[in-house]
């Protein structure tokens, strides 16, 4: 797993540096829109090229090798040392290609989507900053550097969610995202601290990935569990798992390309990546892995149920993202790290596609996001329709599409490691996924357009700068899964083999190919069932959903209210905290402490008032006191 050949290189720093340069240019030339729209996607494109070149180098090297670029010593204090260093191994290679590739497409798309926004340069500045942070995260050879990217992407998320800051909800959503992420980061930091001290050896404390991998055996079992669970908290914050998922749906307040890039394809997968990167720690604690798996499965199911009834097109996709991230975490929990990354990749393709498609719809609908106002867009927006269909099929797990292979692999591993209950949850969730995605598809593109006439009149297909990325992503959503076929099919799980030097081979168990095929069949049937049900509900018999909602009113309201988790947090955490703060300020600070201080002052003052009568201004009275003093002194000399 560790070891392997190290290929020193000095070009990796260019990959994050390029978007950073783009950011600086966007700041300097902020008033020249055209230049920014060329530079910002341009630098990301170049970064993609550099990343591709690095990956090619890696592919030529023997398996298990890694490129390392040690840029400069960053924090050196006593026995602790953290360098700004980058690495490209198989894991980072996959991530860096996803980030730069999908990122580039979304940059291009944004040029069209944001064309009419006066703050376009600011948008691209943020977007480039995000690319910088995300690349730092995936390329980091040191966990402290990884943390820089980790918080950096959180910052960009904050800024981009609140991009249209003039609306209070947006600013509040941004803050919520940052704060919830910070709670996760807190776990992450504590995990890192514990990890750092527990793997200290040979007079050195280090959070270099290689150092951690090498000394992970120093972890006592309980320590490993503690570290792993703390890291899981971090991952739950970033990757929107229970119970820290609440920020992601709100994050949809940002511009749609942001939702696609940050809140679907890249940033939210950082938690998955981090666990995969540190899988050796998790492997040291079977208990923690079990927890990971349960959290993942629970999140997948939980979010999918909420997605069933949402009417905002982006909210549906947001909950679907949470659900899909749950699948990935489930994969991590059953030890299928490569599979999780595989799903990260396919998900990046089809979810970016879906979000961009949704953005295209919103763009065409003059900003309308409510699916109850849409319908029948098939004819008016044909490219969007076809690509959206591809995305829906991919996420629903239609055979041959990208999502089919990755989701299948997750379920197979879950079954294969003996987690039958979790498998059932996963398979059921897959059915739900198909249902709500097709529901979305039907509501948006089938039937009659339900919008107001003036909006309906303006509905149009998006410009090529937006549709070309859609088409490319659609293509990837079809073929992207073919790199990881089940064992025995053609070239088999090439993707897993590529990652194996980093993540290790995950045991599929002894069930063999037959079982996997059977599982695949079950999941596909469930998905088909979900899709069919959606067809019945929303195309054939549109009255049925209302009837059902009326019949199952409590359940329906629970789902529409998103289980009232936000309200719960508000009542249990936010309000008590504000009340406590006020109490501390007004009672403890102002009354008790300052009261004591002022009380001392008042006592002194009162005392002074008393003595003031002695100080009556009559010099002769003072002189008498003086005389008394002299007499006292003399008496002392006399008596002595």
């Amino acid at each position, binding site marked *: 797993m560790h070891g392997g050949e190290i290929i020193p290189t000095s070009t990796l720093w260019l990959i994050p540096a390029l978007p950073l340069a783009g950011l600086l240019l966007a700041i300097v030339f902020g008033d020249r829109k055209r230049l920014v729209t060329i530079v910002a996607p341009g630098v990301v494109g170049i970064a993609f090229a550099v990343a591709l070149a690095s990956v090619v180098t890696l592919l030529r090297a023997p398996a298990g090798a890694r490129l390392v670029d040690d840029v400069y010593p960053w924090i050196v204090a006593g026995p602790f040392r953290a360098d700004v260093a980058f690495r490209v191994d198989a894991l980072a290679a996959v991530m860096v290609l996803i980030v730069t590739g999908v990122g580039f497409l979304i940059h291009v798309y944004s040029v069209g989507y944001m064309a009419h926004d006066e703050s376009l340069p600011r948008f691209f500045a943020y977007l480039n900053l995000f690319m910088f942070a995300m690349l730092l995260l995936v390329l980091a050879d040191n966990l402290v550097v990884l943390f820089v990217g980790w918080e950096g992407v959180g910052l960009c998320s904050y800024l981009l969610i609140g991009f249209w800051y003039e609306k209070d909800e947006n*600013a509040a959503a941004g803050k919520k995202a940052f704060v919830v992420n910070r709670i996760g980061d807190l776990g992450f930091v504590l995990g890192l601290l514990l990890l750092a001290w527990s793997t200290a050896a040979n007079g050195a404390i280090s959070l270099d990935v290689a150092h951690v991998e090498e000394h992970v055996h120093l972890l006592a079992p309980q320590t490993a569990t503690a570290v792993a669970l703390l890291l899981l908290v971090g991952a739950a914050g970033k990757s929107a798992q229970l119970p820290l998922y609440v920020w992601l749906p709100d994050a949809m307040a940002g511009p749609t390309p942001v939702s696609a890039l940050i809140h679907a394809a890249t940033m939210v997968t950082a938690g998955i990546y981090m666990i995969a990167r540190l899988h050796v720690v998790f492997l040291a604690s079977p208990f923690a892995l079990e927890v990971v798996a349960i959290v993942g499965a629970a999140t997948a199911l939980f979010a999918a149920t909420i997605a069933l009834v949402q009417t905002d097109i982006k909210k549906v996709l947001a909950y679907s993202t949470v659900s899909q991230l749950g699948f990935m975490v489930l994969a991590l929990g059953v030890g299928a790290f490569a599979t999780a990354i595989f799903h990260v990749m396919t998900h990046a393709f089809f979810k970016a596609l879906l979000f961009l498609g949704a953005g295209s719809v919103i763009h065409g609908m003059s900003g309308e996001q409510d699916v109850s106002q849409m319908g029948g867009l098939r004819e008016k927006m044909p490219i969007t329709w076809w690509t959206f269909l591809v995305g829906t099929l991919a996420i629903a797990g239609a055979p041959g599409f990208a999502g089919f292979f990755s989701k299948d692999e997750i379920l197979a591993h879950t079954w294969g490691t003996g987690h039958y209950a979790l498998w059932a949850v996963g398979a059921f969730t897959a059915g739900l996924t198909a249902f709500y995605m097709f529901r979305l598809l039907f509501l948006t593109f089938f039937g009659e357009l339900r919008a107001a006439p003036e909006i309906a009149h303006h509905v149009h297909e998006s410009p090529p700068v937006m549709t070309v990325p859609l088409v490319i992503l659609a293509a990837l959503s079809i073929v992207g899964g073919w790199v990881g076929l089940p064992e025995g099919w053609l070239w088999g799980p090439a993707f897993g083999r590529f990652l194996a030097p980093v993540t290790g081979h995950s045991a599929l168990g002894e069930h063999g190919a037959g079982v996997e095929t059977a599982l695949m069949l079950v999941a596909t049937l469930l998905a088909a069932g979900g899709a069919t049900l959606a067809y019945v509900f929303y195309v054939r018999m549109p009255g049925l959903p209302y009837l059902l909602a009326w019949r199952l009113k409590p359940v329906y309201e629970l789902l529409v209210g998103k289980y009232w988790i936000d309200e719960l947090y508000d009542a249990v955490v936010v309000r008590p905290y504000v009340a406590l703060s006020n109490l501390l300020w007004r009672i403890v600070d102002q009354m008790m402490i300052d009261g004591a201080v002022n009380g001392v002052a008042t006592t002194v003052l009162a005392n002074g008032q008393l003595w003031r009568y002695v100080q009556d201004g009559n010099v002769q009275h003072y002189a008498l006191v003086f005389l008394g003093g002299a007499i006292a002194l003399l008496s002392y000399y006399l008596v002595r």
Partner: protein
Amino acid sequence: MTGNVLLSLIVWTPLVGALLVLLVPRDQPDGARRAAFAFSSLTFVLSLALWAGFRADTADFQWIEQGAWVPSFGIQYILGVDGVSLFLVLLTTFLTPLVILFSFGDITTRVKEYFFFLLMLETGMLGAFLALDLFLFYVFWELMLIPMYFIIGVWGGARRIYASLKFLIYTLAASLLMLVAILYLVSVHAHGAAVTFDVRELYGTVLSPTEQLWLFTAFALAFAVKVPMFPLHTWLPDAHVEAPTGGSVILAGVLLKMGTYGFLRFAMPLFPDATRAATPLILALAVVGILYGAAVAMVQPDLKKLVAYSSVSHLGFVMLGLFAVNTIGVEGAIYQMLNHGLSTGALFLLVGVIYGRRHTRAIADFGGLWKPLPRYAAVFLVVMLSSIGLPGLNGFIGEFLILLGSFAANRAATVFASGGLVLGAVYMLWMFQRVIFGPLRHEENAHLQDLTGREIAVLAPVVAMIVVMGVYPRPFLRAMEPSVKALVARIEAHDGPATRIAARVNGQR
């Protein structure tokens, strides 16, 4: 030993400037402004020379100047710099010209007196950081109080008299205890030896545990008020709110560091046993300060009060790092002192900017400032992120090292303290949201002027340092490391936790 006078030049140049400023005719305030700026800038240049000539490979004091002052009492004039004080000196000389430049537009009454006090304050602060004679230190320590008292009391806001008196009496009362302790310490040390206030010799004083505890308490009280540690912090919000912008910046940026510096230079190494005995209490107070400051900061309606309480929280982190008593924690603490000086100083400057435009500091009076003030908002954003410790900016390095260091010393304290990371983000972001984001709530704010050239000239160096210190902390950490190691070794007994950890780290496993 006394071949150079650089330190004396650095310490006394501002005072010379202060006296010259007084000579400027009253009807030429611009002359006073320029003279003050020139002298503080000269001091900064001199201190850069100090850094350039600083040797990072030794823990000894450098550039030592030593001479008799009051020989009959063994009081000497000793100045010296090491890795601990070097950057605090630089912080002082860096911030003062900026504050003076900012005050060009801020102070319009009694201009030359203001700059006189400001420059005198600089001399006091530099002297306190550089003095190696306890008596000399005490003189400089008190010398700082007077100008600050006048700056708050004369150029302050509505409740300035209350605030300045509170500030003066709080600090004075506590530091008198320290004076008594100094005299006692010197008298104990003088048994069988010549009387001396030279701290380098006093480090070796043999004291009984009880004596140590009493003396440590006296020193710690004086410094804890300055830090300020919970529950001795209530002078700070009042002083900050009433002080003029420049006063707030210096107060937060440098004066508070006096407390933490005093702990590190005097209280801890002079009384190591007592330090270890008091560590649990101090850590507890530090953690309470972190969480309490953050919580109370959140509900402040006044921007300056919010920043003031955030200082309580941040300085709690510094104390946490100091009392970790290991190289990592202490280096982090020193680094955090510098960070806090920069970021909180900048926050006060930023509050001063909008206060100058709108004459209100109430958060409720703002909102949606991004639109009329984009440059202001951008600078504010960076400074705020630095304050909440965003990685890549300076605040992170300090906080991370502090947590890393204190994690080894006291896990429970670290875990609780790290909650401050979240709470810190909460109050800062909420404030930012209410001030900068959202719709323009008040018509008056629609036509505010964005940062002027002079304001940019003040803020740009601070922002630049915030970034540089976040990206490349190496020169700073390298220069302070030997001194920190020496101090830690002095404080730490042979069987203390840091040594245990070191043994484990160097262990064979």
